[in-house]
């Protein structure tokens, strides 16, 4: 699309012929490589609360980040003003990381067309009328309230954005992309007597408004948020201690994101500070487990045509039949580790230095029937929905918090339990996976990952799996007896 390639030239007065001059300024003190990241992001969001559209917000964030790499060092400057003198000033700030004469006197640039388009959205949500999006949130509100009279509060958000980027590197490559994103979220509160419980649901991706229908409709997500809150009214204390845990398919794939994904980001590994450092080729999971990071799945929240360093995204095998195969690389780490880039160099915005990040991380389906997996458990926990998670990449300890979980008793799904955090050890938890279902599912498109203060949209996915031993952080000591 020519208009995407020419976005900054046609609308923001950026002169194509100046890009080389900015890069030359960035490399004027030496340095091995420089790049320019031009970004223009339009964001729109609406909030419905107490059945009122309380606010609508729209915003624009635009600027240019300039990076200089010199050995293992990074210099960075940015500006929210695209006037040539401001860009040159930012380039000179970035240049200070290097000290010496310039090795590069002139940069020749050519525009590289993207080889694929993983988000062919004809009409992005951000460009649609506000009234169409209001209709979606109002439908969700009605559906959640209609689900059960005990649903007392409903909050619905719809947020979307369009990001235009132009990335020019001193290797001569100029890449552009147009990245839409949309997300519907529903939060509900159920009340019975003095008992209050909440439920959340939502979905989205790099999609347009037409995505939100069928099993991704406002009614579906609203029903899920309401159902979860109602189920929780009956929840008893969660058990405390080690037990067999079955994870349902989809969003519980957050296990992979926390337990192994972060630990396999190349920056931690080149520094030798990850629990997975130096373990390529070793067994880190049972042979039932193959874990992939894939930025190329059409329409997914974590997908990108090119990463934020202009490198095409790809499908990267992290763990193959239990053996650790590779790390997630950005330009800097791949250069230092002398490996190849994997299209995982990402950043929150033009104000941020890129680093290795996940895209969509999932486990391939196995051969087990999900029903059989549950029937094979005498006493355990069945967790189907989760809130967030976190990991200490150095000692490998990770947590993720179940928001909908049930006891398993004699192979049957029994009473719901209150939310509880699950804690484990990244390098060993997957070695305890004793069954992998044939029901791989990706999450509905709600994930955001934070690292070093930078947030980026991501996806996860997993089939039903059984972990033979994981610590469940409930409060009930009494329950524990039946698990021993």
């Amino acid at each position, binding site marked *: 699309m020519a208009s995407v390639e020419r976005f900054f030239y046609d609308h923001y007065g950026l002169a194509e012929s100046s890009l080389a001059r900015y890069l030359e300024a960035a490399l004027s003190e030496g340095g091995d490589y420089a790049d320019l990241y031009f970004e223009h992001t339009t964001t729109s969001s609406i909030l419905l609360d107490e059945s009122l559209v309380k*606010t609508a917000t729209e915003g624009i964030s635009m600027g240019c980040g300039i990076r200089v790499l010199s050995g293992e060092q990074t210099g960075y400057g940015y500006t929210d003003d695209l006037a040539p003198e401001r860009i040159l000033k930012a380039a000179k700030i970035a240049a200070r990381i290097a000290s010496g004469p310039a090795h590069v006197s002139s940069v020749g640039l050519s525009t590289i067309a993207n080889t694929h388009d993983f988000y062919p959205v004809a009409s992005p949500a951000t460009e649609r009328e506000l009234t169409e999006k209001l209709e979606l949130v109002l439908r969700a509100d009605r559906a959640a309230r209609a689900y059960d009279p005990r649903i007392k509060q409903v909050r619905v958000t719809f947020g979307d954005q369009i990001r235009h980027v132009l990335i020019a590197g001193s290797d001569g490559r100029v890449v552009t992309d147009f990245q839409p994103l949309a997300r519907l979220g529903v939060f509900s509160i159920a009340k019975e007597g003095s008992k209050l419980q909440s439920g959340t649901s939502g979905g989205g991706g790099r999609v347009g408004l037409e995505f939100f229908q069928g099993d991704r409709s406002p009614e579906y997500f609203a029903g899920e948020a309401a159902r979860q809150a109602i189920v929780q009214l009956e929840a008893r204390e969660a058990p405390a201690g080690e037990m067999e845990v079955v994870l349902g398919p989809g969003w519980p794939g957050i296990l992979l994101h926390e337990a192994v994904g972060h630990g396999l980001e190349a920056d931690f590994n080149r520094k030798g500070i990850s629990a997975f450092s130096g373990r390529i080729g070793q067994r880190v999971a049972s042979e039932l487990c193959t874990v992939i990071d894939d930025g190329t799945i059409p329409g997914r929240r974590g997908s990108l045509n090119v990463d934020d360093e202009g490198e095409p995204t790809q499908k990267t095998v992290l763990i193959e039949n239990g053996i650790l195969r590779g790390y997630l690389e950005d330009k800097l780490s791949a250069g230092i580790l002398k490996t190849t880039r994997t299209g995982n160099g990402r950043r929150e915005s033009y104000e941020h230095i890129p680093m290795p990040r996940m895209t969509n991380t999932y486990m391939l389906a196995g051969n087990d029937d999900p029903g059989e997996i549950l029937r094979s458990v005498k006493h355990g926990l069945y967790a189907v929905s989760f809130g967030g998670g976190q990991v200490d990449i150095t000692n490998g300890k990770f947590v993720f*918090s179940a928001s909908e979980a049930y006891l398993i008793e004699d192979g049957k799904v029994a009473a719901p339990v209150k939310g509880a955090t699950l804690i484990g050890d990244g390098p060993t938890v997957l070695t305890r996976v004793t069954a992998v279902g044939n029901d791989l599912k990706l999450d509905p498109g709600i994930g955001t990952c934070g690292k070093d203060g930078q947030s980026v949209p991501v996806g996860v996915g997993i089939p039903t799996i059984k972990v033979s031993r994981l610590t469940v*952080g409930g409060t009930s000591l009494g329950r524990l007896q039946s698990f021993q």
Partner: protein
Amino acid sequence: MRLEQVAGELVDRAKIAGATAADVVVREADEFSTTLRMGKIESLKEAASKALGLRVLIGIRSATSYSSDFSERSLQRLLERTIAMAKVTSEDPASGLPERDQLGRYPGELNLFSSDVDLLSTEDRIQLARRAEEAALGADPRIQNSEGAGFEASQGTVAYANSLGFVGSYRASYCALSVSPIARQNGSMQRDYWYSVARRAAALETPEAVGRKAAQRVLRKLGARKVSTCQVPVVFDPETARSLLSHIFDAVRGDAIYRSASFLTGKLHQKIANDNVTILDDGLRSGGFGSRPFDGEGIPSSVTPVIEKGLLQNYLLNCYTARKLGLRTTGNASRGIAGPPGVGPKNFYLPPGPHSPEEIVRSVENGFYVTELIGFGVNTVTGDYSRGAGGMWVEKGKFAYPVEEVTIAGNLAEMLNHVEMVGSDLEFRSALAAPTLLISGLTVAGT
């Protein structure tokens, strides 16, 4: 001042364009950060940025917008789009600016800005980070690696104007020094960190002190193990106690209350905590990270008692949540660039109690001293609490061995009633602060 003028002019234009009321916040900041690792500079970053946020009201409908582009063309378009949006949102009787007589500015000096931050040269800043890392690496032969050390500094101005005639601005500065050493023993690694933050460069701890503290923290984690599942008293060090304050804040904020999304809904003027628990929200502390002369709606800062000797005295409110609850604003409007005013803390803290931290640990026969909490297992609606934890096991009043890969769980409503001891070691390292706390009745889940 220039930013006040930008804010005031945009408010005037909004009125001309058809808004019945409007307000504008403008921010401008200079930011610097550097990271070093193993003595070498890893990154050096510097930039100046600006942004503005606009809210317009048409009667009792409202909409907001923001932009980093202050050009005439962009502002005109922003204004038109925002007014168009405000015509399709719902009528909300609680919306609107404050009453005119509520507006004002705390007249005293809050010491939010110090020029000594900007006076530190880039080389000085790099040197501070370098010394902190050297101190950590030099502390013990088991520390041979580091995730790095960093120094950041920022200074900026916030201006606010509204169509009731309020215009004001203030400057603030900030600097932080941090280091994360890695220790290794018997093939397993641990990482920990320490940091110092201040509004004045002169108030930072010395880099050597920061490095040594980080080293002590990481060394004591070596050899950590799981423990058996049990119910024991838990001591929260000031860093983890502060996270408890953040959960209490989330439970007293007005938006959670009017939505019944807090376990403290309907509990105003009731006994919700043990007698030894008092929590204040103080907008006037000199140099405080949550101090400000006025809030995000132009309400002068003040001190709000939240919990006094266990009694819940106030929710924390902006004008919107105050109207929803039929109360008066407590000056807690927080205003980022995007969206309408939210509710944010001033300096939200639990004042020091009578016990030294050593005395608290000595009082524990068998329990858990928590220095680290991870994950998001806190439910403000129910108060249910379950988080990953690390720290030291305490036996007969002494640290016995380090602990990892366990969770602690309970319920915040019960935890507030089971605060057994309050430490004397309060230190402000952010807008939220608490001393060491001993809380009984929590479940530790391990093996």
